[in-house]
């Protein structure tokens, strides 16, 4: 058996309940989620943290996570969903294999993904801004390649599924 439990799931040496699988990505149910329907989406290749994952794979991970998120709204009557990544031990990462959590949410479900806000001075904010911008120049290389395709610009699935009960519309009406 592979040392990594998540690689074990990929190799089917560890039992799992699969929701989705393709050549590079797999999604399984968390047996111990706060609510049933909590899923892990992860690349089949073993990466420890997000920075190692290819652009294509990370895009796919989010795409699958979003589909699961939609499915949770559509079939499980959840009131919300979180997509949550703990990247690094300091961020709460537990397994040494990069995973993305899709978390079904209900009011008062006992999950805490809130934070207390900090107040930074204008000077501190500017320093942080400069430091990050400097690194982004090095890190973001695909910008020159131009526009990613934004074919379905309308993306108004809302209008196709119009109806009072549709969660997409409920979300839109949430805070007029």
């Amino acid at each position, binding site marked *: 058996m592979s040392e990594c*439990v998540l690689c074990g799931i990929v190799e089917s040496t560890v039992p799992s*309940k*699969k*929701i*989705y699988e393709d050549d590079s990505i797999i999604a399984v*149910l968390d*047996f*111990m989620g706060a609510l049933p329907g*909590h899923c892990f989406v992860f690349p089949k290749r073993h990466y420890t943290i997000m920075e190692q*994952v290819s652009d294509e794979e*990370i*895009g*796919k991970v*989010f*795409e699958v996570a*979003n*589909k*699961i*998120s*939609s*499915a949770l709204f559509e*079939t499980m009557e959840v*009131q*919300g*969903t*979180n*997509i*949550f*990544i*703990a*990247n690094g*031990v*300091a*961020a*709460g*990462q*537990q*397994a*040494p294999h990069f995973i993305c959590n899709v*978390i079904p*949410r*209900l009011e008062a479900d*006992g*999950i805490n993904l809130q*934070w207390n806000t900090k107040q930074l001075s204008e000077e501190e904010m500017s320093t*942080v*801004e400069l*430091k*990050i911008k400097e690194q*982004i120049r*090095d890190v*973001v290389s695909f910008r020159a390649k131009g*526009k*990613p*395709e934004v074919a379905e610009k309308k993306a108004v699935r*809302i*209008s196709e599924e119009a109806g009072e009960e549709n969660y997409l*519309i409920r*979300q839109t009406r949430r805070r*007029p």
Partner: protein
Amino acid sequence: MEKKLTPEQIAELKEKIKNMSPEELKEFQKKQCIFCQIVEGRVSAKKVYEDEVSIAILDINPANPGHILLMPREHYTILPQVPESEINHLAAVAKKLSNAVLRALDAKGTNIIVANGVAAGQKAQHMMIHIIPRKEKDSVAFSIPQKEHSMEELDSVQKRLAQKFGTVAEERQVPKPKEVEAEIKEEKPGKVDLDEISSLFSGRKK
């Protein structure tokens, strides 16, 4: 600042909103949305990144210094409304921004969070991805309690979710889920060697 509305005006507005088509509603929301105004440059913000599809700004009320809000230029309320091509793009940008804050602020990790819906902690009405730099023992404390669920319940959830992908996932014999969970817990966090990973970063400037 907004003018105070009389109760009649509020009722009228509510009625108007109720009768709007989804497209009109989106247009209406866009006008009210502070993040759309930031996108359009009508409200100032500390922009750290932008491209044709997305922009990233510093959160003025951060969980930690360097907390970034990455959002599509287009107004969407929740992620399920965002087209796939934009989701792919946002994910790749989020990864790069995470990489940048790790280096820039000597962070030891990042949390990437999307909240869909008020119950999930969503506060802004413009869909966004939070990128929160983390350090050991900072003041951020997320918790996700664990619960046991019956196999029947998990089976039924699996079927319902897998349907979204048009394939009912393969049935598997899973007699002892608790043991599996125990194995996962035994994986010590210490195995994530950030020093090793940051050395990978330094050799990877493009």
